[in-house]
């Protein structure tokens, strides 16, 4: 089995395929349908024994860095124009790369306005694993 991160972006990634309003302009029923789709997807993965984790992130982020001995960390942001903004992730544990692509494709079909798929780009990243014991 191999673990993959499905990364959902608020911004970043290739240009959107479908132009649709931001989610706060959708009808409440459309938002409900979108959220339900994600929850059903997660539940289905758990039943298939392929679910590891899923988290949503607030768009409000802060950059933080070390600023030298004895000094408090420096903070910066939030940046309205940050190129890449991560909205959340799912972690799956699947038998093959092909299965990971299939699942990402399915999640990308989550419904938006008028119940139509939003064709969202998802970023698929493999986890690094533990080393195998037998290598020669």
């Amino acid at each position, binding site marked *: 089995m191999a673990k993959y991160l499905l990364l959902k972006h608020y911004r970043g990634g290739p240009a959107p395929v479908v132009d649709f309003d931001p989610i706060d302009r959708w009808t409440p029923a459309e938002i409900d349908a979108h959220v339900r789709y994600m929850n059903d997807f997660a539940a289905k993965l758990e039943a298939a*024994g392929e679910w590891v984790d899923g988290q949503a992130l607030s768009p409000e982020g802060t950059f933080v860095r070390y600023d030298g001995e004895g000094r408090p960390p420096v903070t910066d942001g939030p940046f309205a124009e940050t190129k890449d903004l991560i909205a959340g992730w799912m972690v799956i*544990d699947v038998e093959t790369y092909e299965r990971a692509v299939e699942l990402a494709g399915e999640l990308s079909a989550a419904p938006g306005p008028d119940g139509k798929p939003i064709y969202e780009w998802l970023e698929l990243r493999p986890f690094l694993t533990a080393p195998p014991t037998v290598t020669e």
Partner: protein
Amino acid sequence: MNETLLRELIPAVTGVLVRRGADFATAEDAVQEALIRALATWPGNPPADPKGWLITVAWRKFLDTTRAESSRYAREARVAAEPLPGPNDDTADTLQLYFLCAHPSLTPASAVALTLRAVGGLTTRQIAEAYLVPEATMAQRISRAKRTVSGVRFDEPGDLATVLRVLYLVFNEGYSGEVDLADEAIRLTRQVTSMTDDEEASGLLALMLLHHARRAARTTPDGALIPLAEQDRSRWDTGLIVEGVAILQASLARDRLGEYQAQAAIAALHADAQTADETDWVQIVEWYDELDRLIGNPVVRLNRAVAVGEADGAQAGLAALKRVGPVPRRTAVEAYLRERAGDLTVAARLYRDAARAATNLAERDHLTRQAARLHDVLRQ
């Protein structure tokens, strides 16, 4: 009684329930519940007859579960009417459980999970921890696996090759949490070897012991990989090497070679060398040729190219590498051979590329250090 001894009883207990007429999936769940209760209560209150205790508790659980579906009377009548045919002993039952848990209809990951639970006697939580997934996910993986094999007759002839494949995966992959998967794979392979008298089962056991012998020398205290050539051989476990070599020699003497015996033979040649320089690479190349004939895959040819590089020089190794198609670690091997051939600039670039393509963290870090080491040399 320690936990390992407790776990050794698990397949036999499941076998008793199945033989009394329980279906495998329900029996296995009942035994798991009995196991969890044993882990909780035995330390303070050990039973006089551990196996009898497990059978009683598991059977009661089984009856509780199935009472809703059919009356106990009807079930017991059916059980009495249809005793399972075939030899009636723990060994036969346990071996049948191995076959069922590694049934060809299961995906490798499902077979691994089911084997660790139903034969290994691990709890779902322990298995989930070893593969870094939530317990609920592992529980679902196991119950799906049980549904997949629900139509398989318990006394159906099994395929030992799939069992060995599953045990090899347990040994070779997975993190170790509370339970050491390498130890567990060795324990189970020992059991299969004792039940089957099969050369390849013995070959696999020898392979595991010979690799396990190097475990302490394989990584630094902070987890960095130490390549075979640089390992402190005084830290290899000579007891395991002696045992592995003896098992291998006995199975090779029967002249029914298979892939695990050939791999174990290669590991034994490494174990036999007091220093890396004394390694008999010529013989190792011959064993890779043998392995290539047996299973012929690109990973074997890749490792053969490394051995050719040691036996006949880096240029010969690079020539052998030309025969190897795209496969993980190919770039890392080419980097190593280029360095040996004196082409440090190319080697440094290849090490960097190989690090980027590495699928595990320890290997990535190792390759990154190799690139850094060469850059350091090139700067001088």
